[in-house]
């Protein structure tokens, strides 16, 4: 059987657990302890995971982080299991269930009674923003609980094999993966209560969170909530855009850099922002051929240095190009791309076919604002920040008292800014809980200056303008 697992990587080391076996529709599948069901199946060459509800189209591995519905199967008799976030276990029985599964026949054991507790601060999301907020608050004596769906906290940092840009004083030059380690170590040292593998189910009045943990339902009554829930990738509308083999850049990164599994052999990258360029480079590092990067704009969007890395490896970057359709019936077998004119119209006669088995979509991110909206925060569409963002004070408090945001969920920016915003929120929470001090005010000033620094220059102009549009004037409120 095909094996898509990466055995050697220039940057990453994959620590695979011992070999285990599980049953997939009557066939024995080899996996390694620590892999998810979907990752193991994908590594073994499975393309169709489920099918769509009405049009019965094949659905493949897609988001890789348990947020979509593309990998749901029946596992040990339980339907609708997100196999991309469910770890494999020896002897497990996994079955596809198509569009609609049968109502379960078995009755699983009961779960423990919900646990309720009162805490100072709940932080949702363990990326650079959430961790930074939690660290500052905990260092100053707050009882801080940080929830993250991943078993490896660190947010998207854990997928970043490249060295970070930014100030050397703010960890630039460190790889994302190492940065995540540092932040986690610091969080533990500061006494942050880390809850990896937990899902925040919802906001309930007043500042109460329902959380799904491995031990059951947990309810946290808080004095302050920080939503640092990051971003969601933009999807793209084109013909056959749902074929297995079409993934978001995040899904590709998760598969490749967390599970050590290559998405395919030949990848067409759509989008030339930093995400597209960086993931393109990471694909090359994993030994995957990047056939082309296409970009609808007349110029590529990311840093020239990232583009140069790809160009030096012989990867063409075609600007003013877009995808017309994906080719294939059960999975991607190629793509048709064409040139766009100044009015975004296809230029006749420029269509050409590319051979590829993966189409990676990297056409930007939008803030994951679902949680703040649930809490009832007032939102505003700010193009410069990637979509709808909560209106906030300078300290990043939303219009819901005691509910804060930081990082990409407040507006799409770089990881360094996310970390700085997290720190700022940490300070604001300390002030709320314990009153202000010279130390905290000084710290806040420094952080604000740091954020301002990061937003200087041509690449900072856009977010700088965006933030102005959704930040309340302190004087007014």
């Amino acid at each position: 059987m095909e094996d898509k697992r990466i055995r050697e990587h220039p940057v990453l080391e994959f620590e695979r657990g011992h070999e285990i076996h599980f049953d997939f529709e009557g066939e024995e599948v080899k996996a390694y302890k620590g892999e998810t069901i979907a990752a193991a199946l994908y590594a073994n060459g499975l393309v169709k995971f489920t099918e769509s509800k009405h049009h019965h189209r094949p659905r493949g591995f897609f988001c890789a982080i348990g947020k979509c519905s593309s990998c749901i199967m029946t596992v040990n008799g339980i339907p609708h299991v997100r196999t991309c976030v469910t770890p494999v276990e020896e002897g497990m029985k996994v079955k596809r269930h198509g569009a609609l599964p049968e109502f379960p026949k078995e009755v699983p054991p009961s779960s423990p009674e919900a646990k309720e507790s009162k805490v100072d601060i709940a932080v949702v999301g363990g990326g650079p923003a959430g961790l930074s907020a939690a660290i500052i608050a905990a260092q100053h004596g707050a009882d801080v609980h940080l929830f993250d769906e991943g078993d490896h906290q660190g947010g998207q940092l854990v997928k970043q094999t490249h060295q970070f840009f930014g100030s050397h004083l703010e960890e630039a030059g460190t790889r994302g993966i190492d940065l995540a380690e540092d932040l986690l170590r610091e969080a533990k040292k500061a006494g942050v209560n880390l809850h990896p593998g937990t899902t925040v189910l919802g906001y309930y009045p007043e500042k109460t969170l329902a959380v799904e943990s491995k031990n059951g339902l947990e309810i946290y009554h808080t004095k302050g909530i920080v939503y640092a829930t990051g971003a969601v990738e933009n999807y793209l509308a084109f013909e056959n855009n749902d074929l297995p083999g079409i993934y978001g850049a995040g899904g590709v990164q998760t598969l490749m850099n967390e599970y050590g599994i290559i998405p395919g052999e030949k990848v067409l990258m759509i989008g030339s922002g930093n995400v597209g360029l960086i993931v393109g480079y990471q694909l090359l590092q994993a030994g995957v051929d990047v056939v082309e990067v296409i970009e609808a704009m007349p110029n590529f969007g990311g840093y020239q240095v990232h583009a140069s890395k790809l160009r030096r490896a012989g990867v063409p970057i075609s600007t003013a190009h877009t995808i017309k359709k994906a080719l294939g019936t059960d999975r991607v077998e190629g793509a048709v791309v064409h040139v766009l004119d100044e009015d975004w119209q296809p230029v006749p006669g420029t269509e050409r076919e590319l051979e590829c088995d993966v189409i990676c979509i990297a056409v930007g991110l939008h803030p994951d604002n679902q949680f703040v909206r649930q809490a009832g925060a007032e939102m505003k569409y700010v193009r410069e920040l990637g979509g709808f963002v909560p209106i906030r004070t300078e300290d990043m408090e939303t219009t819901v008292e005691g509910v804060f945001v930081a990082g990409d969920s407040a507006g799409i920016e770089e990881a360094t800014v996310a970390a700085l915003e997290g720190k700022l929120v940490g300070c604001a929470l300390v002030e709320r809980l314990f009153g202000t001090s010279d130390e905290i005010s000084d710290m806040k000033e420094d952080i604000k200056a740091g954020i301002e620094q990061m937003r200087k220059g041509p690449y900072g102009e856009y977010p700088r303008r965006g933030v102005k549009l959704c930040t309340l004037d302190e004087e007014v409120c």
Partner: protein
Amino acid sequence: MTDYKETGILSLDDIKKPSEDRLKKGPVVVIECVENIPCDPCVAACPKDAISMDEITDIPSIDFDGCIGCALCVTECPGLAIFVVDCTSDPCTITVPYEYLPVPEKGEKVFALDREGKRVQVSKVVRVRSSGKTYGITLEVDRENIWKVRGLEVKR
């Protein structure tokens, strides 16, 4: 500015080059970083303070006379945009950053690539240094290729 935002390839006019005189004196850094990116690890990497910037978003300013061509910055640049050229030997050498597998060995013959990934010549690896997982690989290149070669491909 040339059309590098369309092509991803810098032209020689975009790059600040050391003078011919400076090139004769010893190895020296070439930084192919032309955008105002908020980034400054190169500044911290230089033991001679030959790279500087006032604001983090400035383009690095290089004191070619202060640079000793030590190549410490080559592996520190997140953009893999720093190279060291040495025209004092024959053939000349160029140190390029490298983060792929396999890692070439000293003495190995590799393809030297240009900015478009095209093979320019066959080069001998004369030095392999690493900082973390990023390597600085020093290649022998013909004098006429020192402004062309910016990458390598292992022949194995």
